[in-house]
């Protein structure tokens, strides 16, 4: 064996390739984005000039970016809890079935396998205010007991919402599609987590007086699913922050009616690619990275305190 491999710095040969790759692929782009965010760089333009925190000032003072943060956080705070809760609920129900569980698993996993961009176009058809199946179905309920609901009666009297074209509904509809697409993946993760819960714990809990299903869930299932939940919530958060396909499919000209669905990832694309304002695009990217990192750290700190890894 050569001297270089047996010497004092041998370990560097082992960690070197991974370290170089990590710097090149992970750290370097972040550092470059950080540097660009303090410049007015645009592709093909003059040499970038240092503008200090001007790009960040714009982001935190202009109303467009205020809407961007609002839409992003609304989306994340709807999609994450709902997709996690529905994923867990579906997994528990399917796990407790004696028959046909495989059919439900397949159906619920279908949206995960489908291309979101293509499915967004299908949702656009379904949600069309005049020819869409959603409003056509809602119209069937006019003149029935459903009109006791004031929202429904208003829809029958005038028109049902424009959904994607209405600034009051746009981000919630996009969030609904996010939940529709994402909860099947969480369900699969929870199903895997449930198979790892030892059956003896349920028997022991029952002997200790945990008679109801709720008691067994509260005392055995939920604590044992702690590591799975940490993973599911973290993944769901990051995926929700990264929402882009649906917004691009629904609103290629801009983030929806009155910028009500102007999420961060779309803003990065619009500024840096469409408008060639790389500096401001890089500043939004840095904010995006900061939010994701902060959220992940808070989450891990909050949840891992109560998580017991077997």
């Amino acid at each position, binding site marked *: 064996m050569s001297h270089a491999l047996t010497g004092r710095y041998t370990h560097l040969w082992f960690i070197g390739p991974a370290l170089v790759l990590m710097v090149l692929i992970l750290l370097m782009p972040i550092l470059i984005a950080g540097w660009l965010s303090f410049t007015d760089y645009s592709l093909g333009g003059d040499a970038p000039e240092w503008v200090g925190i001007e790009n960040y000032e714009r982001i935190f003072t202009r109303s467009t970016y205020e809407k961007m943060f609002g839409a992003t956080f609304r989306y994340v705070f709807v999609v994450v809890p709902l997709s996690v809760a529905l994923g867990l609920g*579906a997994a528990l129900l399917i796990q407790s079935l004696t028959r046909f569980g495989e059919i439900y698993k397949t159906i619920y996993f*279908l949206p995960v396998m489908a291309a979101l961009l293509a*499915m967004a176009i299908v949702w656009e058809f379904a949600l069309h205010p005049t020819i869409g199946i959603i409003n056509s179905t809602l119209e069937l309920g006019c003149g029935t007991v459903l009109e006791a609901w004031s929202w429904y009666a208003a829809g029958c009297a005038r028109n049902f919402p424009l959904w994607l074209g209405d600034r009051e509904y746009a981000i919630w509809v996009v969030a609904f599609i996010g939940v529709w697409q994402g909860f099947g993946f969480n369900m699969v993760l929870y199903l895997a987590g449930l198979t790892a819960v030892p059956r003896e714990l349920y028997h022991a809990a029952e002997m200790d007086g945990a008679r109801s299903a709720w008691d067994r869930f509260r005392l055995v299932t939920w604590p044992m699913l702690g590591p799975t939940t940490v993973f599911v919530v973290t993944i769901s958060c990051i995926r929700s922050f990264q929402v882009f396909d649906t917004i691009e499919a629904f609103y290629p000209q801009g983030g929806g009616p009155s910028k009500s669905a102007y999420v961060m990832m779309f803003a990065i694309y619009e500024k840096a690619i469409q408008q060639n304002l790389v500096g401001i695009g890089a500043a939004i990217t840095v904010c995006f990275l900061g939010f994701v990192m902060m959220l992940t750290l808070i989450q891990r700190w909050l949840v891992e305190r109560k998580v017991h890894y077997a």
Partner: protein
Amino acid sequence: MTDAAISPAQDVARDGTRLRFSTAEAVKHAVLILGALVVLLPFYVMVSYSLSLIG
């Protein structure tokens, strides 16, 4: 013996609780079918539009 074999459902299969178990199972299926309908809605729209005539 498998877990399914020692499940309460089969322990009480011959007495009155069988009906209660069946109802619980039916409710679970009803909830899951409702969810499945929502999940399958865009796929139904996609297939129905692809089979309909233009114009």
